[in-house]
């Protein structure tokens, strides 16, 4: 018996050691990689990260007691325990039952208030306050690439944008393909890109860097390759980037745009030094109203 017990003890130690090793290895690995949701580089993503952390911590108020109760009861009232009470007739307690309608209720009440406030504060449509003037970028999801149009700068690019830091950026987003979802995890949450509809996303980058953007909604064969780079730079570098595009010999007219609609995968970065007027509005309206889209696309 004693030998058996010692063997069991050794087994427990081994399992504990194994778990510890796994945990250490995992944390070493995780500290070496980039986790954008927990290391946000933008105003919105930062607030969203805090929200995630807050909700997770608050949930612990329920999770920890659940685990403690579960395992301590499981141990204490196990079959064969000689000391524990056995009361087969115990089938409820009004106080306790009321208690666990109320306690989760209170937590949910707190979370509901947070939800209500954060839904409004972090509404992707809400323009951001800043002393800097917002940069506007129109986004069209195509099969399978992202077309970015800077309507005021009259330039466009494929799969890359440059944004000045500490400046509000407003994206108008649509799709000329199946539904996609526009997502730059380091800077902000995502929003759908849908044909015939125009959604909005406001964000602001606070750190200089190059961030990954992607489509988060399956849209067909080339979906996995629909990645783009967001270059967050100083304002002067941003201007230089725009000027550099202006040098490009390629122009985005309605006819070159139509060529672009042909499905293609893993597209390299590409620049257009000018963009046909109202291209974005033409794209949005052509699925909704033939009359309206003729107005926007009539001069093509």
């Amino acid at each position, binding site marked *: 018996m004693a030998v058996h017990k010692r063997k069991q003890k050794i087994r427990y130690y081994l399992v504990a050691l194994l778990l510890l090793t796994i945990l250490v290895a995992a944390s070493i690995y995780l500290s070496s990689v980039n986790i954008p949701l927990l290391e946000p580089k933008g105003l919105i993503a930062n607030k969203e990260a805090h929200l995630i952390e807050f909700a997770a911590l608050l949930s612990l108020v329920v999770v920890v007691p659940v685990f403690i109760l579960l395992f301590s009861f499981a141990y204490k009232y196990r079959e064969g325990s000689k000391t524990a009470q056995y009361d087969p007739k115990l089938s409820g*307690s009004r106080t306790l039952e009321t208690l666990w*309608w109320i306690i989760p209720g209170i937590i949910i009440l707190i979370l509901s208030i947070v939800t209500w406030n954060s839904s409004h504060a972090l509404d992707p449509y809400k323009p951001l306050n800043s002393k800097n003037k917002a940069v506007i970028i129109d986004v069209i999801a195509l099969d399978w690439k992202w077309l970015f149009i800077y309507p005021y700068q009259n330039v466009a690019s494929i799969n890359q944008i440059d944004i000045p830091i500490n400046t509000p950026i407003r994206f108008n987003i649509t799709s000329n393909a199946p539904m996609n979802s526009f997502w730059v995890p380091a800077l902000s949450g995502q929003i759908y890109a849908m044909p015939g509809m125009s959604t909005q996303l406001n964000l602001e980058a606070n750190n200089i860097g190059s961030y990954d953007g992607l489509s988060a909604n399956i849209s067909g064969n080339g979906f996995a390759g629909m990645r783009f780079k967001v270059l967050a730079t100083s304002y002067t570098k941003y201007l230089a980037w725009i000027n550099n595009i202006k040098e490009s010999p390629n122009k985005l007219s309605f006819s070159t745009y139509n060529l672009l609609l042909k499905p293609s995968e893993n597209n390299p970065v590409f620049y257009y030094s000018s963009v046909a007027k109202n291209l974005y509005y033409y794209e949005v309206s052509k699925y909704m109203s033939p009359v309206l889209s003729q107005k926007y696309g009539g001069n093509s």
Partner: protein
Amino acid sequence: MYLFSFLLLGRLTLKAIPSDTITRGGALLVLLAPLGLAALLTYKKKWKWLYKNWLTTLDPKKIGVMYIILASVMLVRAGVDALMMRLQQATSAGASNGFLSANHFQQVFSAHGTIMIFFVAMGLMFGLINLVVPLQIGSRDVAFPFLNSVSFWLYTAGLIIVNLSLVLGTFSIAGWLAYPPLSELKYSPGVGVDYWIWSLQIAGIGSLLSGINFIVTILKMRVKGMNLMKMPVFTWSVLGALSLVIFAFPILTATLLLLTLDRNLGTHFFTAGGGGNAMMYVNLIWAWGHPEVYILILPAFGVFSEVVATFSRKALFGYKTMVWAIWAIVLLSFTVWLHHFFTMGAGANVNAFFGIMTMIIAIPTGVKIFNWIFTMYKGRISFATPMLWFMGFVVLFTIGGVAGVIMAIPAADFQLHNSLFLVAHFHTMIVSGVLFGYFAGFTYWFPKIFGFKLNERLGKYAFWCWLVGFILAFVPLYILGMMGATRRLNHYPSGLGYQPLFIVAGIGAGIIALGVAFQVLQIGYSIYKRKEYKDTTGDPWNARTLEWSIPSPAPFYNFAKRMEVSTKDAFWEMKQRKSLDQGEYEDILVPKNSPIGMLIGFTSLAFGFAFVWHIWWLSGLSLIALISIVIYRLSQDNIESFISKDKLRKLDISRKAEG
């Protein structure tokens, strides 16, 4: 020639036969499995036995067994899909493209989700409901035995259609819910989405009919004295789940119908352009889809309620609050569907409302968890396999629940939506909440149906493999989601640090597969040892509800005597008062076997298949056949056999002598 072929076979041509090795392998398996089975049956001269005892049966217990067999086969099939996805994602970084093409990978995950929900989870659920509900309420049968067989055969027809896509043509690439416009003709011109539509449509109508059937069974066929508040909690949960079925499934029927019209008649419900509205589809499908989650999970909650009480040898804690919690969940589950697409760009008020409603569902769920835990309090807990599944469920479900609460906050969901975090979350909920529940239920009620218990040791091995494998497979996905990895990626750049985590997840999936192997082994070994494991008492677990008051395996007439109960946990009370074997024998009617349910299944299969391939003559013909068969059945008069009480007494006494 071309015209002739089109008239005869629609768009079905030789090109439909798969060309690449992996698909061919799959096709071969799908073909060989039934062929091998057929050969075995012929060799053993068992066709007549199969036909008489199983295919034409109207006995809910046998129908339940058939549901579970098919669902288990599908668990393996969709499990192989999962392994393929894990292997692809573990190997497809940077320069390497893995072993699946993008298109093939997309078919695999679409099939995995579709089959797991419709043909594994739903199959296991209806299997258990068929096995247990009539017994638990002390009834001899369901309200409409023939309709029950129709439901089963419609489920089978849907199941065959989804698997046929491996042999002929391709499957949908649009995910398990086939969002338009990707699922519209413009972007998915092939047969894939049509396969998806018809397998769901046919199986879905089967589920709807089952829903009606069992609601009437529960409402009208309870044993004398069992009023609603004395019903076992499993039956309560089933009643809740099926109430959701009858409200949710018609929405699915309508939605699929509209998508069919879009794809075949050129209408504009969900198309991009033409005045269609794709987001309406997303709303409609989730107005069904979210209740669907609770349809699957409520009966599993019911299983846990039975299991915890039985294995703690104690009454369920807070019966009334349990029932209230079920109905709170039922009502609330129709008010939360929008949380599946906060990122659609609805206003802050709308998002906040649906977010808060979603969180409120956590309250009744939490109540249930506390009640289960306090059922253990002052109990005498024996850790048989069903109890282990319960413990695993509470741990995983609580963690998954936290992830769910986080994602219920719209602004947090913007970051987590469609990421692998979400994938990990819903797998945590469905694997622990649904699969673990049905595994527990299967082990628990197995002796009642087959007359012998399952091997405990192998069951425990299976449980630990599932638990450890699950943690290894899905914790990395939570982290990957935080790292910005989205779902459904067939390829990702190297240098993001994804690959090691995907490899760990792959290892986890392998361990789960080992768990499934142990489960198969467990059943095989227990059948081999069935004499040793025989349940002679009819009550192997010292349980509480009526189904355990009769011999195992349950006889075809369920209860020989007309009983009366006066309390909940009626059988436990009878045991306490030592007043077993009460009641009187009486005459009964037993429905005669009928092949018509099967015929209806196969004509529906022909109809769906023909529709997928545009073989219009065949779909027309099978529709007419279907209607004629139904009319024929409705004109049959002599559909039951009469068993007198004397005969029943003899049967019962000889049964008990055997036991």
